[in-house]
């Protein structure tokens, strides 16, 4: 990153993702944060600042101001602590803020975390909380929730490109297969294509097993300057590029609904910053809140031409051993989707993969990895490229 200080991720931590009924928002935050700090090998007192991604703690657990909770319960007061919100992209945005803070030279040692505690309220309340990430006046008030919005994208994708229900289902099968190998995943079990296709219809053509679940969880990474990274005894993973883009919040205002322009722009920005092309990426964690989102993402990021994401998935090109392993962690689908934590958890996975510490889901010879984190139906997108 020209003109800026080099930035590394030197520590990662995450909780299990799932229905963690015996853990509170602060329990999860502290657990992930402490694990990341321990992993960095540096003393916590040297931390300069904290950034926390969280979408809707106010509705989910009636607690706002979690920036203070984070500093307080991690024993880090009076360090600067800031909450970042961008719907399901909150975590990715918090990471980007931390990276920029270190790159600017202002800080040397920063923690970026993400957390969401979603299962304390009833499912319909959770659905309403998530619907706040859509356009309230033009979408949510009319009764549209996220499965409905993504169903429209899926339907149009099927119409324009011949994407099939099999292909939408194959994304879930592949991600569950990977998630079964991830000890932190909410669903550590494979599913068959018949199970996916036979699951309840949520919003035609989206079925239950095409959707990511409602989850609790937290994740954290320690972001450091080059100097600090050398000081630490951990295995630094370098931030090669970062990108962020916005689009209209309402789906109907988009140029087209099968492409997320924010993904295209954020992906290109990160690649340009890293001086890489998409072919250089060894693995990618994409935002598969619904399986159609993964198909669109791998096209919009440039891994496959538009309209061929479904076929690529069906042909096994996105499997762990495929041309480009997509969501080796199990993705949002199988690993779980505590919305504010997702963007950070993606970075945790890429760091583990690049360190060669991803266990049974290890991608062979991985040296460059990418994350792709989306807010809402594509109104916000944030990407990162990390390398050894």
């Amino acid at each position, binding site marked *: 990153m020209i003109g800026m200080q080099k930035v590394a991720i030197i520590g990662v931590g995450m909780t299990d993702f799932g*229905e963690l*009924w015996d853990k509170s928002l602060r329990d999860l935050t502290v657990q992930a944060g402490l694990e990341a700090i321990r992993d960095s090998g540096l003393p916590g007192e040297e931390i300069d600042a904290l950034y926390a991604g969280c979408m809707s703690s106010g509705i989910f657990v009636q607690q706002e101001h979690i920036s203070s909770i984070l500093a307080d319960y991690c024993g880090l007061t009076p360090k600067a602590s800031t909450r970042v919100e961008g719907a399901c992209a909150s975590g990715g945005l918090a990471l980007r803020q931390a990276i920029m803070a270190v790159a600017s030279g202002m800080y040397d040692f920063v923690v970026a975390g993400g957390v969401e505690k979603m*299962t304390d309220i009833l499912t319909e309340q959770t659905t309403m909380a998530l619907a706040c990430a859509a356009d309230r006046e033009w979408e949510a008030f009319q009764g549209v929730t996220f499965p409905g919005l993504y169903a429209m994208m899926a339907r149009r994708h099927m119409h324009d490109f011949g994407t099939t229900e099999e292909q939408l289902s194959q994304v879930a099968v592949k991600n569950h297969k990977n998630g079964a190998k991830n000890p932190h995943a909410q669903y550590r079990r494979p599913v068959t294509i018949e199970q996916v296709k036979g699951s*309840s219809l949520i919003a035609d053509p989206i079925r239950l097993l095409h959707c990511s679940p409602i989850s609790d969880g937290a994740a954290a990474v320690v972001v450091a300057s080059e100097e600090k990274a050398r000081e630490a005894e951990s295995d630094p993973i370098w931030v090669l590029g970062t990108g962020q883009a916005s689009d209209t919040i309402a789906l109907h205002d988009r140029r087209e609904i099968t492409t997320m322009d924010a993904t295209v722009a954020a992906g290109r920005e990160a690649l340009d910053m890293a001086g890489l092309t998409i072919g250089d990426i060894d693995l990618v964690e994409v935002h598969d809140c619904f399986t159609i989102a993964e198909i669109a993402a791998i096209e919009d990021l440039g891994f496959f031409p538009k309209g061929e994401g479904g076929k690529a998935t069906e042909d096994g090109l996105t499997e762990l051993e495929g041309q480009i392993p997509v969501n080796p962690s199990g993705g949002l689908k199988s690993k779980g989707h505590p919305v504010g934590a997702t963007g950070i958890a993606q970075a945790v996975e890429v760091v583990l993969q690049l360190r060669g510490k991803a266990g049974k889901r290890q991608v062979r010879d991985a040296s460059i990895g990418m994350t792709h984190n989306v807010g809402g139906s594509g109104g916000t997108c944030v990407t990162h490229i990390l390398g050894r």
Partner: protein
Amino acid sequence: MPRYRIRSRDIATMWGQDPVAVEKGLGIIEKAVPGIDEDTITISVEAARDALKRARISPEEIGAIYVGSESHPYAVKPSGSVVAAAIGAVGRMTSADYEFACKAGTAGIQTSMGLVGSGLIKYGLAIGADTAQGAPGDPLEYAAAAGGAAFLVAADDKGNVARIDHTVSMTTDTPDFWRREGQSYPRHGGRFTGEPAYFKHVVETSKMLMEETGTSPSDFDHAVFHMPNRKFPERASKTLGFTRDQVKQGLVVQYIGNTYSGCSPLGLCSVFDVATPGERILLTSYGSGAGSDSFHITVQDGIEERRELAPLTGDMISRKKYINYATYVKYREKLNFAE
């Protein structure tokens, strides 16, 4: 057991759900619906009369009546006193109503055990009965049913039906299901009602009972677990190591739904339909909120001559008349224009 039944698939069709998926998912084919003139008290009285017929005692000898229910007709005014009057037990006796979601019936059995065991009373009458509520369109509507069972508890042995060898309970503050004062329908925590609520309490309490009695699943001829649907008790029994054959006779939820305070007690009654002297039964109730009562029961010789003195549970379950959703709405007074 009320004679009206509504099929799960008729409720599912009404709400635009997949009838086959619902029936398969919950394992409930149909549920018992109370008639418009039936309530927890009338069900309790009928069950109590049958219990008296089998016990062949005079109602005046009953020293205590406990009615466990979460649908007592009155918020203030006991069901137990009405039951006492209806069966001729009023006078020198005590009574109280219990509420502990679906386990208030077994709680009454335990209280009666204490009173007869201490010699304070000769006979205790413990009843679990409900006309459970499920909000229109709520998944609870498939299960919330009506029915009840009554047990006369004594410390002496004059040809008893069964002997309670041991009981143990577990109680925690687990908010999985609740109905606040003045609310017509209960609310629930969705999937939270499973793992940390039902399964934790049912499995742990059953294990405690087996530990304290030095038994293992293979020692029991029958096992009855609270049955909010068919899946939960089947899974709990499998976790504990019971076979399908052991739980089969007590599993009546498919045909009557979840009768709440009457639920596991009715499962026990169904076992009494066929049980032979010497057989051992494990009974574990569950009440949201949450707790479980577990019992080690041994069937006694008295069952043979007393069984036929009143209608069998299985006969009451098969005596039925189907109603459609509209009639169900009428009988359950779900159309309320006053509010």
